[in-house]
């Protein structure tokens, strides 16, 4: 931990109370509560000079050993003047998957948060344009969640308004209609 990090933690403690911090191979990390996030980030941006939001990402801890929470949001911050880096983590649990957007502080958060929303379904309250970005708009699942399989679930189950024939008595009838359609063509 650099002296800069120690000062940052001290400032955070005064403003927002004691927070769990940790260090691993030179990365310093702090865990902030969902409700105090915006206040803490304002402090970090304003008086601690973290002017670069390096990345916003998320980890789904569904199958992680000894995990206490479902999702961990990760904000990677950097101070371009002092080269200080800080990893801010926020743990989220269903059903309250919403955090305030960081767009007013760092406008670079716009697309980064959209991607997290697209892949994990975390809602960023106050985001100006929270739509899917990489997946099509009609998609209904969140592909980077751990309960979503690698091979996907097939187009029939994850697109709105698309219904696949159910495997019952009617199914045979539908298949035959389709076949005759193709033969006619």
């Amino acid at each position, binding site marked *: 931990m650099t002296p800069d990090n120690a000062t940052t933690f001290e400032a955070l403690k005064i403003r927002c109370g004691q927070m769990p911090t940790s260090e691993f191979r030179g990365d310093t990390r702090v865990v902030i509560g969902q409700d105090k996030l915006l206040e803490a980030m304002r402090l970090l941006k304003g008086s601690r000079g973290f002017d*670069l939001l390096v*990345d916003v990402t998320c980890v789904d801890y569904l199958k992680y*050993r000894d995990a206490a929470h479902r999702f961990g949001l*990760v904000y990677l911050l950097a101070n371009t003047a002092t080269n200080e880096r800080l990893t801010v983590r926020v743990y989220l649990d269903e059903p309250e998957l919403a955090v305030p957007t960081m767009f007013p502080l760092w406008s*670079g958060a716009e697309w980064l948060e959209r991607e997290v929303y697209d892949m994990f379904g975390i809602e960023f309250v106050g985001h100006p344009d929270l739509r899917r*970005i990489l997946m*099509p708009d009609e998609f209904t699942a969140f*592909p*980077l969640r751990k309960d979503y399989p690698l091979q996907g679930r097939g187009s029939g189950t994850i697109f709105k308004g698309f219904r696949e024939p159910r495997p019952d008595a009617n199914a045979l009838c539908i298949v035959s209609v389709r076949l005759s359609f193709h033969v006619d063509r």
Partner: protein
Amino acid sequence: MSIAEPISEAEVESREDYLWTLNFGPQHPATHTTLRLVLKLDGERVVDATPDIGFLHSGFEKEGEHLDYNQYVTITDRMNYISPVANNVAWHGAVEKLLGIEITPRCKYIRTIVSELARISDHLLSTGAMGLDVGAFTFFLYAFYQREVIYDIFETLSGQRFHPSLTRVGGLAYDFTPLVIEKIRTFIKNFPVTLDDMERLLNRNRIFVDRTKGVGVLTKERVTNRSATGPVARASGVTRDLRKDEPYLAYADFDFQVCCATAGDCFARYYLRMAEMRESLKILTQAIENVPAGPINVGVDERKTLPNKAQVYQTIEGTITHFELVMANRGFEVPTEETYAAIESPNGELGFYVVGDGSNVAYRARCRPPSYIHFALFPELIRGHTLSDVVAVLGSLNIIAAELDR
């Protein structure tokens, strides 16, 4: 009617009737890759642009959760395929940080050299394609001739031109042979001549300068606020360069400068890339003559890196290490931790956020893609400029759609 009177939504719509919408892409020769822009035009002037991306999304991060630490390097090759080795180095840099491996000095030097070759290759493509889009065809051919030489070096080194997958956990797949070193030396000798020619072609070319100067201006404050890094940020006056600020690999050993421009327009971004290639050449010149002797991989007894075939078949330590790393129920000793490591890739800060869960496969492999972050800047760069400036701005940002969508 007073000016301040509010106007209804229908009226706004009717006033905007004369604007028309143009779809640019997904298949368009000037996008070079697959991305779509919906442009709102007032005559030839772009009023607004809405990027629509995701056409090349193929779940690279999801695959990272199912391929082991060595296998995933082939996927990173396909992210920014213009400079694949930089991605390899970034990925295994992050993995080695997670696993706590200190690589050998020779490996550090070789990784530095290939990263700089990748940087030159990437900058040649981005300036070359930008020249091509604004009408400088000869410039593009000069650039691509030299890229071919770099591909040839990678082919000699790894057997692959495009996707070398050069790195492994704790080392490299291939060592430098005398032939590779000779080819790099020849490249270092010949490249400055081409670079001079290229600069003479465009730096004072009236058409090129008129089309790029003052187009797509980004201020220093905006650039950092929008998370941009690399050449895009440095062209606007930001001096941040991870090679200097957080020296990784062997960068601390070399004498080079961080290039910086203040104009922040397309011309500045072009000019900066040209200048950076000269600095890369400086690093290459110093590095290639000082490659330390010794092994490229960490020791076999550490059980951190795959031994080569001779070791596997002829020594018992090699056989055991190979067995330990390859068998599905064994493998690397991975802490249940998470870490982030970044390098200064040709396009900007390229980092990986890796979460380990004790198994051979990353629990989460997040890539921080510079192209994705830079493309978000596009609407504000193009607003108010003409349709023909779209290609100049796109070219200067160097958007690689495979990295954009992953």
